[in-house]
């Protein structure tokens, strides 16, 4: 009897093979497994044969949308600056997409980073992915050499270690609070759409912090990021961080220092998160990529919550909803404006 992920893996390989064989796509982006347990390797299959290496399991945590712009570009005929754009249809790329990844692709399309017509999206309604760090935490950060999973549990092994773990205890935070597991755009589905998840405490993590005193919040924030080594894994794992020159590299003016002094780290994380305001689809790649276990996702989640409260929109839910910070309504909330609140007080 096979597991859900094994069944998905099988169908995925078939679909990918078809797409490559039929020449519908020039490359297919998926996952394969590497040398380490619990760390999957994003993988570009360029030949039908390579599709056999595709795999799907609970550790496919990095957002594959991240690879699309560069991959698409690499498939275009070379152009010198000033050359007109190439004629005719350009080679396509196949890609796997869960709910958050597909929403991310919507934003990429809205921001002209990828073109919908060049994507063949294989949708998978996500069951939620496993947080490797949580697993390691449960086994006291022991040396794990193999992990075998079935639908609801993980069997973790290492020198002098064999432990069965309930999959649902180690699900990633973003998956745990995800309400849109289904892809919003896709060309083929593997498995059925699950529909919206009803979730009471969608923003629990954020609310807990909101309820702290301002001083406590500052302490939480600084301690959360104090181990940051400024390796930018969070930034580079994020499909929405595609600036050729990141603000951290601007020197005139220098928005943020490059050292790991607390102020520099704080400002880096504030601006990085703010730049995702109204765009982040909570795919959790940033957190998964972070070697230090910083939960910077909570920052973007807060922004997601506020944008939803203030403007009633969520990033990537549809191609025709404008991004919240590049549009406005005449009656947008403005109680935060001093002159307005003072008016209020006078009344």
């Amino acid at each position, binding site marked *: 009897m096979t597991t859900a992920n094994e069944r998905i893996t099988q169908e995925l390989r078939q679909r990918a093979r078809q797409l490559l064989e039929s020449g519908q796509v020039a490359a297919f982006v998926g996952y394969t497994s590497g040398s380490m347990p619990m760390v999957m390797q994003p993988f570009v299959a360029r030949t039908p044969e390579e599709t056999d290496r595709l795999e799907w399991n609970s550790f496919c945590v990095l957002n594959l949308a991240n690879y699309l712009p560069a991959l698409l570009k690499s498939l275009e005929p070379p152009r010198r600056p000033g050359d007109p754009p190439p004629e005719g249809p350009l080679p396509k790329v196949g890609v796997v997409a869960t709910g958050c990844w597909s929403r991310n692709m919507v934003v990429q399309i809205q921001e002209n980073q990828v073109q919908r017509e060049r994507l063949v999206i294989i949708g998978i309604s996500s069951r939620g992915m496993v947080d490797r760090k949580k697993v390691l935490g449960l086994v006291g950060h022991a040396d794990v050499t193999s992990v075998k999973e079935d639908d609801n549990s993980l069997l973790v092994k290492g020198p002098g270690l064999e432990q069965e773990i309930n999959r649902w205890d180690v699900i990633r935070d973003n998956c745990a609070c995800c309400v849109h597991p289904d892809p919003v755009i896709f060309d083929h589905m593997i498995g059925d759409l699950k529909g919206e998840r009803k979730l009471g405490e969608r923003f629990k993590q954020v609310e807990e912090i909101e309820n702290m005193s301002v001083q406590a*919040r500052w302490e939480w924030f600084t301690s959360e990021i104090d181990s940051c080594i400024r390796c930018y894994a969070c930034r580079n794992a994020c499909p929405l961080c595609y600036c050729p020159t990141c603000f951290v590299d601007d020197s005139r003016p220098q928005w943020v220092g490059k050292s790991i002094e607390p102020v520099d780290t704080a400002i880096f994380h504030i601006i990085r998160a703010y730049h995702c305001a109204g765009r982040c689809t909570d795919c959790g790649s940033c957190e998964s990529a972070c070697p230090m276990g910083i939960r910077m996702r909570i920052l973007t989640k807060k922004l997601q919550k*506020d944008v939803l409260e203030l403007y009633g929109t969520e990033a990537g839910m549809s191609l025709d909803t404008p991004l919240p910070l590049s549009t*406005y309504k005449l009656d947008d909330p403005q109680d935060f404006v001093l002159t307005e609140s003072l008016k209020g007080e006078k009344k």
Partner: protein
Amino acid sequence: MSDIAKKQAEWQPKIIAFLCNWCSYAGADLAGVSRYQYPPSLRIVRVPCSGRVSANMILDALRSGADGVLVSGCHPGDCHYISGNYYARRRFAVLKRFLEFVGIEPDRVNFSWISASEGEQFAEVATEVTERVKKLGPARHLVKEF
């Protein structure tokens, strides 16, 4: 008055005020023309429009050591550039909540609408913001030091 209290009272914060050229900067001028007095804490930076002000600029002001920031533009609907202040309003609404979330005191960063004819209101806001920042004391959280 205790010495600390005195120091607090004497201490003059430095507040960066980004004022839009058409309304708030003119309002600040009118405050002067009408001789409305307010604390000498503001350092006014003239920008074309409140829509010109970005989150980065506000953070950089704090990073550079500002004890507070004020961004002021035309009242909604009065923007000399039609809609600049509407976009600004969204940027700032999100930013302000976010900064509070990471523990920046709400009164550090302030926004206001002041028209060219509101000299008195400008003086009021300048005084109010100064008082609030004074209560908080010198900024520390995002101030770059070395």
